[in-house]
């Protein structure tokens, strides 16, 4: 056990996170930021199939369970940790790096867990460490958003825990394995709901577009990669083939896209696109065929890279200009050309252009819907991909880098941010041009060829005509500086209902209780006081007076025994001490 626990990739990140303040003082922060993911990468290739098995409170815990699906997610998480670390390399605060690494450790731990108990531990580590990536923005908005994020994830964690408890009570088995669709019970639905909250499945999604845009520039790059994708992993592991996931996935793909079309804040647009893209993955899991699950995993891999690239590009603009609202930006192409190029590469990847990663991953999920003859689902996913290109592929770069010149001073970001974006952009093309790189990591054997004439033609037509549509709608789609309500309204304004309840009914009840106390309570208090006062007079006073009288008598006697001889005094003192001792012993 002790030898294998250090093999756990999470332990590498946890160690680095804990040592980060010290490493900073030693001037080793930058080296360790680059080295930690590389060490984890080295360990990753050498993981045994099972490790870290221990027994705790009569339960068998498995901290390491590695198979093809685990390996794919570990692979992309470590790559992402490297890209994110590079992007954040210039930031001096060691605590922000610590939070990011604990968060990565949580994601790796969840992915490796072979049972629900160790999964839950890492699940909560993820929630608690990631909230600091929001709070470190150190603004009033981010502090509020962070608290709401934490509360939602605590709620999700509790639902998951309730499911785990019930499962243990009913089956005495907490191993984290696939649940047959026909054998789903209440515990499984609770666990699924807990997972869905992290996957941002509507109606449990509002925390994501609420919190991510308020995170730090570098924090958002980490946030967009891990929480939702670990949730995709656990859903794919436990609940492939659940029809509810197919329907919800397709709905969320469209839901995110429609919000993204009307939103103004660039990072909120990207956040809604996480909801939308994770929708494809959830849908693929719901379809449940080898193609569907493969598609979900492939899309998770590709999505982590291009979504991080998009958050890095827009984050670079925020870092250099202090702005992220489309209505306040424009005309930056001359001042931040590299950020433009990288963001557009992210944009065409998410839209599924041929030769980019989205083309070879998203199409697997869509093809899975086609193979299973879900026509409506198929069309919903295609429509979502139209909206994706419309809002992220065209509108977002157009409004930031072209359009009306905002006159904002800016220049391209530091070298490390550019390098991180270059690595991510390179991977988007690598996966797109050489899909075997991704396909050989997938859990099932791949019988899918993305580059067919029909698929190419279909994609190009859809994209070209979406471009035409944007051209026609460009005036209508102009960004407006407004806020759009989402389901977080219920708990953000709901807190007002609680306040109103506290101010009105609760305080009225309080007043009524006060009134009752005045009439009933006061009378009884007066009666009690009378009893107490008579006890005071007759009991305590008499006793005190009595003792005073005694003191006087004793004084008189003392006066008599004052002989002036020292031996008498000493003797008297001894007798007094002796009597005092007896008094203490007796009373």
């Amino acid at each position, binding site marked *: 056990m002790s030898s294998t626990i250090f093999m756990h990739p999470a332990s590498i990140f946890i160690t680095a996170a804990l040592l980060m303040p010290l490493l900073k003082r030693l001037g080793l922060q930058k080296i360790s930021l680059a080295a930690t993911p590389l060490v984890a990468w080295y360990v990753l290739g050498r993981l045994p199939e099972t490790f870290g098995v221990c027994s705790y409170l009569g339960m068998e815990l498995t901290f390491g369970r590695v198979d093809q699906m685990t390996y794919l997610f570990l692979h992309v998480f470590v790559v992402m940790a490297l890209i994110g670390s590079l992007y954040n390399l210039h930031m001096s605060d060691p605590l922000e790096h610590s939070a990011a690494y604990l968060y990565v450790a949580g994601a790796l731990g969840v992915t490796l867990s072979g049972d629900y108990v160790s999964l839950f531990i890492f699940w909560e580590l993820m929630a608690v460490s990631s909230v600091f990536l929001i709070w470190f923005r150190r603004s009033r*908005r981010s502090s509020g958003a962070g608290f709401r994020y934490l509360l939602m994830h605590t709620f999700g964690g509790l639902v998951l825990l309730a499911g785990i408890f019930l499962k243990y009570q009913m089956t005495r088995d907490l191993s984290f394995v696939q649940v047959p669709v026909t054998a789903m019970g209440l515990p499984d639905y609770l666990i699924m709901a807990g997972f869905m909250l992290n996957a941002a499945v509507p109606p449990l999604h509002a925390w994501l577009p609420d919190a991510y845009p308020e995170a730090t520039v570098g924090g958002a790059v980490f946030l967009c990669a891990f929480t939702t994708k670990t949730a995709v992993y656990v859903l794919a592991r436990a609940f492939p083939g659940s029809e509810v996931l197919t329907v919800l996935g397709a709905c969320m793909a469209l839901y995110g*896209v*429609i*919000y993204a*079309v*009307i939103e103004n804040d660039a990072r909120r647009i990207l956040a809604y696109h996480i909801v939308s893209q994770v929708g494809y993955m959830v849908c693929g899991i719901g379809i449940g065929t080898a193609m569907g699950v493969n598609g979900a995993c492939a899309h998770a891999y590709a999505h982590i890279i291009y979504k991080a690239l998009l958050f890095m590009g827009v984050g670079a603009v925020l870092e250099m200009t202090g702005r992220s609202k489309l209505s306040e930006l424009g005309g930056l192409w001359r001042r931040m050309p590299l950020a433009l190029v990288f963001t557009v590469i992210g944009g065409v990847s998410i839209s599924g252009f041929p030769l980019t990663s989205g083309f070879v991953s998203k199409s697997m999920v869509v093809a899975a819907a*086609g*193979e299973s*003859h879900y*026509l409506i689902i*198929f069309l919903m996913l*295609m*429509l979502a991909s*139209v*909206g994706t290109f*419309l809002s992220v592929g065209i509108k977002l770069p157009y409004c930031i880098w072209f359009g009306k010149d905002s006159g904002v001073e800016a220049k391209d970001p530091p070298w490390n941010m550019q390098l991180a974006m270059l690595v991510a952009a390179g991977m988007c093309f690598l996966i797109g041009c050489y899909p075997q790189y991704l396909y050989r990591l997938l859990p099932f054997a791949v019988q899918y060829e993305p580059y*067919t*004439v*029909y698929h190419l*033609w*279909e994609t*190009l*037509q*859809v*994209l*070209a*005509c*979406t*471009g*035409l*549509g*944007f*051209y*026609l*709608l460009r005036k*209508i*789609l102009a960004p*407006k*500086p*407004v*806020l*759009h*309500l*989402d389901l977080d309204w219920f708990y*953000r304004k709901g807190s*007002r209902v609680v306040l109103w309840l506290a101010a009105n009914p609760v305080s009225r009840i309080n007043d009524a209780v006060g009134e009752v106390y005045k009439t009933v309570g006061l009378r009884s208090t007066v009666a009690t006081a009378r009893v107490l006062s008579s006890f005071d007079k007759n009991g305590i006073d008499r006793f005190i007076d009595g003792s005073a009288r005694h003191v006087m008598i004793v004084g008189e006697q003392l006066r008599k025994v004052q002989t002036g001889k020292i031996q008498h005094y000493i003797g008297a003192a001894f007798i007094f001490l002796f009597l005092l001792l007896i008094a203490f012993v007796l009373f």
Partner: protein
Amino acid sequence: MLKKVFFAGVIILAALDVFVPRHEPHFAIDTIPVFWSLFGLVGCLVLGLLGKWLLSPLLKRDEEYYNNE
């Protein structure tokens, strides 16, 4: 100039769709020529107008909506 190239591209893509072979189509729509061009255009207009003309007016609030507490 750029605009003309783009429009020409859209038209060429749609026109050549008639000649593109269909391998084992899953749905009837896969066999309709120019379907995906129309889908892209109509889908884009529907999403854009649905969002901007229906949802946004219903859901939009002042940016300080949640801060005035």
